[in-house]
Each structure stands twice: as C-alpha cells, then as structure tokens.
C-alpha cells in the first residue's frame, strides 16, 4: 500500500526576456528609475573593473584573476539589497558585491595582486574575506548566522557558491543545518553552467540545483540570474525572510560564465564556441540597458558619460594600487597568532636579516 508522504516544487522567476523586453505586465514595484538605474551603473562599473583586472593580469601587473563576466546582475542586486549590518560571506567571484559593500577598487586590485592587505580594511566590516576552498564559505555563513541568531540580532547573512560547489559536502551540510536551526542565511548559487571545464550536467543529474533545498527541508527557488528585476524580487524576499526570523533560502541564479574560468584557464579547450555565443545574446548588462532605454530611463549620452566616469575611477584606483608600498617582512609573522610566539619571533629576526642580505645582493657579496 502506497501513500504520498512528501511533495515539493521549485519555482522559476523571470520578468525580462533575453533582450530586456518584459515577458508580461511588469509589477508595480518595478516601475520608476529606482533602483534600476543604480543597478545598471554598478553593473557597468563591475564590467569595467573586470576588463581592467584582466588586462593588468595579462601585462604582469596582477596575478591570476577570476572574472565575473556574466555575473554582474547577480552580484550587484544581491549586494545592493543587503543592509550595511548584514554580513557577506563571499566566494572568489564576488568583486562587485565587495565593491558595493564598501571595498575600494584599490583594495580589490590589492587582493588580486597577491597581497593580504586586500582583505584587511575596516570598510569590510564583519564581512568575511574571499573564500577559495570550494563551498567552505557556506558553513562559515551558517556560523555567522548562528552568531547573529544567538545574540538575537536581526541581520541576514548572504553567501554565494558556484554550480560546481553544490556537489561538495560543505554546501550540503550547510543547507541542512541552516534548515535544522532556521538560520537567517541566504544561499545564492551562481549557476554559470561550468565548473572550470566540467559542465553543470556532470555535477548532478537533477534538473535544477535549487531542488537541493528540498532535501534540506528549506525554501528553494530558481531565478533568471541575468534579469535584475527578477533577482531583485527573489533575493529581496529571501533577505527579508531571513531578517524576520523566517529561515533560510536557497536561490539558484541561472547565468553563464562569459569568461574563462580565471586568467589561468583557456575555455576554448573544452567549451563549444556556439554555446558561448548564444550566452552573449542573453547577457545581463545589455538586457538591463535595453529595458531602461525602452522606458526612457537611460540613453546614449548618459551611457557615454558613465562609461567615461567609471573608466576614470578605475584608472585612479590602479594608480593608487600601484603606489602602495610592499609589505615588510614582519607582516609575514605578526598576524599568525595574536601574540608572536618565541620561536616565531626568532624566525622573524632571521627573516629580517635574510631580507637585508637579499636587498644587498645575496650571500656572495657578504
């Protein structure tokens, strides 16, 4: 004898089609220029930052860099909807979020330039630094949310992960405990269809990644990650639910990684070029611009002006980045522990001597 003991479903939200044309009558809250023009401006800034970062890497002025090309809408909408005292637990592709959360462009270049001070400034508040080991950030986000909840504070925590990362235990354990403890956390999957060279289809046979939420007993949904309007609704509601103590949400934002995985990668080795071409036709920046144009909220003149303005901001940031003096050798030792232990102090002393020696041209010149 059989009975149904559980039923669940996943919903997908879209408002704008691939070209930015409304799919139906737009909701009232979508009318007017706010926040859409600001979103658009931030997205343009993010894309310009990205272009510059890649060119700094190509010219040897910065290290390996993970491009956010194609994820501008997700990053910008998520960060913009966060309140200052919400906490961001980013992964390594969230530069635009970090920008909006208060990190200067200079700091971002500094981090990607291989300098720990890029994660050090007070503008980052209690936000966590970039997370490189896949999926671990999801558990940190739950820990942060636990801290907020235990203290009776009503902020939300937002964290992001890639499609590939959803296969790793940390993510799955995180959504489970978020459910069990009803934590104020929003998980965003940036499903950009690729984990380096491994396509989404090879990570998981389920038709959506959002349905992993069902296994954890939490709310899960899909959203068009190139559609700023849809993102605004879905992410905004999730953040509000979290702040109101109504528990966690898992949001799968459907996007596409328009770049190589990082500057160290060559996607032409494994990715069909027509797939990439098709994805460009759906990309988030042009889509939002078209919609703004169609409503008379943006025009070519404003575009030109904003492009010039952001270009200048970025040039200034690059200059500031390049002017930052290197760390001293002491900084390699001073933050390992709250107080430098005896043995490490001795090593620091030796390192200072070594550094002097090196600056003087090495042992042969002694």
């Amino acid at each position: 004898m059989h009975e149904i003991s559980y039923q669940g479903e996943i919903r997908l939200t879209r408002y704008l089609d691939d070209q930015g044309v409304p799919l139906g009558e737009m909701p009232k809250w979508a009318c007017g220029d706010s926040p859409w023009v600001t979103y658009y401006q931030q997205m343009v800034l993010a894309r310009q930052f990205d272009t510059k970062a890649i060119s700094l890497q190509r010219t040897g002025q910065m290290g390996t860099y993970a491009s956010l090309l194609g994820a501008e809408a997700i990053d910008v909408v998520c960060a913009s909807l966060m309140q200052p005292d919400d906490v961001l637990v980013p992964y390594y592709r969230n530069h635009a979020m970090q920008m909006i959360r208060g990190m200067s462009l200079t700091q971002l270049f500094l981090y990607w330039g291989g300098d720990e001070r890029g994660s050090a400034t007070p503008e980052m508040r209690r936000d966590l630094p970039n997370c490189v080991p896949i999926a671990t950030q999801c558990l940190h986000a739950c820990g942060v949310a636990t801290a907020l909840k235990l203290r009776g504070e009503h902020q939300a925590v937002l964290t992001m992960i890639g499609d590939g990362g959803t296969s790793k235990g940390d993510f799955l354990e995180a959504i489970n405990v978020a459910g069990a403890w009803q934590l104020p956390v929003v998980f965003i999957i940036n499903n950009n269809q690729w984990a380096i060279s491994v396509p989404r289809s090879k990570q998981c046979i389920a038709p959506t990644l959002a349905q992993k939420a069902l296994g954890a007993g939490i709310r899960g949904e899909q959203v068009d990650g190139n559609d700023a309007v849809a993102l605004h609704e879905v992410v905004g509601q999730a953040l509000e639910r979290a702040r109101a103590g109504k528990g966690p949400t898992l949001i799968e934002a459907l996007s596409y990684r328009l770049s190589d995985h990082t500057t160290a990668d060559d996607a032409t080795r494994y990715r069909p070029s027509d797939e990439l071409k098709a994805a460009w036709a759906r990309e988030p920046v042009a889509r939002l611009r078209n919609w703004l144009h169609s409503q008379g909220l943006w025009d070519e003149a404003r575009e030109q002006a904003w492009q010039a303005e952001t270009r200048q901001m970025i040039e200034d940031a690059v200059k500031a980045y390049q002017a930052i003096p290197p760390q001293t050798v002491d900084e390699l030792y001073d933050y390992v522990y709250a107080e430098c232990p005896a043995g490490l102090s001795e090593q620091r002393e030796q390192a200072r001597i070594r550094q002097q020696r090196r600056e003087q041209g090495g042992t042969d010149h002694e």
Partner: protein
Amino acid sequence: MSDHAITLLDAVNLALARALDEDPNVVLLGEDIGTNGGVFRATDGLKARFGERRVIDTPLAETMIAGLSVGMATQGLRPVAEIQFMGFIFPTMEHMIAHAARMRHRTRGRLSCPMVLRAPFGGGIHAPEHHSESTETLLAHIPGLRVVIPSSPARAYGLLLAAIRCDDPVVFLEPKRIYRASKTLVEDNGEALPLDTCFTLREGSDITLISWGAMISETLTAADRLADEGISCEVIDVATLNPIDHATLVASVSKTGRCVIIHEAPHHAGMGAEIEATLSEQALTYLQAPPRRVTGDDTIMPYYRYEQLYLPDVDDILIAVRETMEYSG
C-alpha cells in the same frame, strides 16, 4: 566553587562551566553534548545550567562543526566545539587548516578565530576501532593553530581556561585514558595556565624524560622506579605542542645530557622527532648519549583486544632509560 578532589574529566567540565559563566560569548557545540552531557560526560549538566542556546547539540557532521565554529568565531563568539573522538577529527581539517589557522593572518588582524576544538584522544580504554588514535602531530604541524594537551586535573582546568580565553584557534586534546584515572584537588579560581611553557613535573640531574598526555603517568611511574635505582630523572610535560617551549627542553637536556621522549602516537614523523631534532641542533655538545624515542610503532592502532601490544608501557621507558644511562660513545 569546588575545591574537592576531582578527575581530569571533572576538571574539563569545571573549566567549561567557568568559561560559560564568565563570558557570554562562550558557546559549546558538538554531537551529544546537550542532554546526554557528551559520551564521556565532559559537558554533563551544562545544558541544564546554561540552556540550549549555550550548549548546542549539532547535526552529525564534523566538517560542519568546524565550519560553523569558524563562522561564529569571526563574529566575536568563542565557540568550544567537541569532536567525539579524535579518530573523527579529519573532516575538520580543511576548516582548521585553510580557515581557522589563517583568519587573523589573511585579514591582517581585521577578523580572528578564537575557537577551541576539543577531542578525547589516545588508546587504553578498550574502545572500538577508530576510537583510540593519537594524531596530534597532524595538527601541531600547522602554523596558526595551537595544540594543547593536559595531563592532570589541574592542568586540564588551567589550560582549558587559557585555550578558551586565547584569541587564537586552539586544538585541545584530552587524554581519555586518564579521564578518570585519579582525583586531585583543583581550586575553581578561574586561573589560567600559560600556553607557552612546558611543565617541569620533577627535577632531576641524570636524564630528562619528555612526554605529554596520558603517557605522563607511565613516565612518572618510571621515574619513581628509576629513583630507586639511583637514576635521577627530570620529567617534563610538554603540554603545548605548538607553539612549543623548546627553551625549557633544551635547557633541561643541556643540564642532564640525556633524554628519552615518550609518546603514544606513531614514531615516524611524530612530535618526538621535532623535539629530538631541536635538541640535536641546540644541545648537541651536551648530549652524552643519543636521544631516544619510546613511542607507538608505525602500524595501525590495533583493535582493543590487542591495544596493549601497541601502547608503550613503563618497562619500555625503563629499558630505554637504562640503555641511555649505560651508553658509552
């Protein structure tokens, strides 16, 4: 205020209670630590006293326990997580190594990770497989972590308080074989012990015996027996395996000229090697005999029926000491 004789396990409980009491940021989490009071009862009564928001039973996932603790600690809490047995600590390693150990360093002090990861370790209680290992070296090798091991009720109390108040992530390993081995007077005075100093348990002039955790018992017993034979042993409890207080060890061996290091963990690349290496670097000319290690062998910890075949015992120490004393070039 307890100052009656208590076990090492009681002392852990006492320090946890003290810490919960004095600092609202202290939160305990782990498997079965709530109503059940932990499988060894280290957290017995604490949920009843401090409530389930301070003493939290988690879902069954060690990676999660470590990852949650990292996140909590970045926001100013002081999570004290229990891993039920050290044999189940491995899923925590990515979070301990890649995150806990580095949070302060990566953010140049903007954030820190004042968490404690407690776990009972070592053999000798006839436990099932994977419940008797000693892998302290794996954690001691990691810059940014502290690894602390008590060997008496008083040191358990003082070192655990120090670990919880410390602004660094601390792995606190409890020698479960001596959890209930003996009772001594411990005053619940809130005084922490230093995390950067060995404990010289007995002064001596002929040879230095260096150990930590449960093996301190066998080491002290051996020292007694050797005293009867006219051999004067200095006995040092290392207690903090990282950062380690090499100065005390080097000074002692420079004085006695001989040493035996005793630990339960496997021999190869164990902590005994680090200590011997440092002695050979810094006290070579004082060494009147090769240093010796009395350790577990490089084999798998046997199932409980055979664990005595693995564990070093008093005789092993006696023989090593006698041979070292008899050594002549």
